[in-house]
């Protein structure tokens, strides 16, 4: 089974709390194909981030199971790259050393690893900034460094948790276009959590719409818009607007 294939089967997640247990996720079933781009949208508190963290092996499910490439997920999987809402760069390291972090944690970095770091920095357009510290970069550039760090180990799956949520609209548009290019060049499966419906439709093959309390998959919507996509093309496309409208209505 291709290692970018994700199956979520009967997943439930309950957080115990003094005021009574909170069911964050309830009976989630999803199957995501290798190299697919899937977005998850839903109201805040619907558990979309929790779902992503379960897939990433950061928290254990209460019930049900997750498989990646057929293997049961019990801990963070080396085939997964994670991009968080914040860039989470280490301010005391240069851009390049931040991207090298996954290799350093895995052992002693090789020359091939260093070459890979340069390649991904090239891919996100920041090779010229590799000697800078994160504090000298704009928010958009920082987030691109964190994308590079997630990609450097050549993962089969990229999990992205509202990665561009904190960026201004213009930077976010640029990042979306770049993300599609990177996805195209890297053959990864991407699971992308966002609260921006337009972003979800623009990027994805399928959009999972979640409902809150308990978090359930409310609907799965296929986005039948031709690739490669650009803003000019997509915004002139009837399907884009009707899907946006449909998802918006489902969220209310």
């Amino acid at each position, binding site marked *: 089974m291709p290692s970018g294939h994700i199956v979520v089967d009967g997943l439930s997640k309950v957080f115990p709390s003094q005021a009574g247990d909170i069911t964050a996720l309830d009976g989630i079933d999803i199957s995501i194909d290798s190299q697919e781009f899937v977005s998850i949208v839903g109201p805040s508190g619907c558990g979309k981030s929790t779902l992503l963290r379960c897939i*990433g092996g*950061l928290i254990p499910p209460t019930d049900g199971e997750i498989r990646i490439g057929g293997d049961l997920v019990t*801990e*963070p999987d*080396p085939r*997964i790259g*994670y991009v*968080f*809402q*914040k860039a*989470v760069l*280490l*301010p*005391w390291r*240069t851009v390049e050393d931040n991207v090298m*972090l*996954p290799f*350093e*944690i*895995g052992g002693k970095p090789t020359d091939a690893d260093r070459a890979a770091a340069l390649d991904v920095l090239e891919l996100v*357009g*920041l090779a*010229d*900034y590799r000697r*800078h*510290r994160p*504090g*000298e*970069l*704009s928010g*958009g*550039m920082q987030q691109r460094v964190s994308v590079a760090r997630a990609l450097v180990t050549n993962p089969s799956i990229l999990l992205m948790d509202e990665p561009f949520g904190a960026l201004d609209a213009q*930077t976010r548009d*640029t990042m979306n276009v770049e993300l599609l290019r990177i996805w195209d060049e890297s053959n990864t499966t991407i699971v992308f959590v966002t609260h921006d419906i337009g972003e979800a439709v623009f990027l994805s093959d399928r959009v999972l719409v979640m409902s809150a309390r308990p978090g359930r998959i409310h609907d799965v919507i296929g986005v039948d818009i031709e690739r490669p996509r650009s803003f000019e093309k997509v915004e002139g496309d009837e399907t884009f607007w009707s899907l946006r409208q449909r998802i918006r209505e489902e969220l209310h």
Partner: protein
Amino acid sequence: MASIRRPAARGTTVPRFGLSEKRLGQVLFGASAAILILIWHLWASTNSPLISPTPGAVLQRLIEYVGAGRANQHVWITVQEIAFGFLLGGAIGIGFGVLAAEFDIARRVIMPYVIITQALPKFALAPILVIWFGFGQEPKIIIAALIAFFPLLENTFLGLTSAPAEMIELFKALRASRWTTLLKCRVPHAIPTIFSGLRVALMLALVGAVVAEYVGANKGLGAQIIVAQGTLDTELMYVAFVLLTLLGLALDKLHGLVYRLVMRRLYGKGAATAADQQPRVSV
């Protein structure tokens, strides 16, 4: 889009009365210090030199005392006590701080001791330490270590445990071991906090060494103060105060220097601004 954002430098010059803020501060400081010294002079002049010598007399005595080389051994003894006390207390503080931060069980065992030793006034121990160790440097080093240790334990613990949750989660996602997370995430994150602990510890070690010398010593600046008190040599007392103040300033400068070097190594050239976030007296 690819523009570099540089942090604005702190203490940027805002002209006032035709002077930069920095220059104006220096002028105001100089003027107020001159007024204070004048008040001291006037007050001392109307009193017996036994109560207080004048600033001029203190300066003259200081030059004589230092010039004759009489300060050397006392300063050296006190510096040694501070250094050993600081190193001993610092090492223990950092060590237990790491243990307490890493292991809950260690924290539960260590913290009650910390609270008890903090509640105990450590200077009160000086007489018994003199009985145990005599009039040498050991009791002073132990007192200095005992009070230097707490700020380091506290700041080490605080620095190590305050790494942002998302940073810890990143390391978890990258399958980092506890040891790797400590070394590559928590420790570098804690460096500035540990350094402010070191600064406090250094000053406390100085106080500890001097006060312990009061209780029983024949050498060291604290011992000189007690000797001066016994012979009603108020001038010599003042000389010792001045030397202690200069020593304190020198130690603080040294700390600042090391801190800046470390910060520059960690954060690169932009570290100067990060280092400046710690308020620091410059002379």
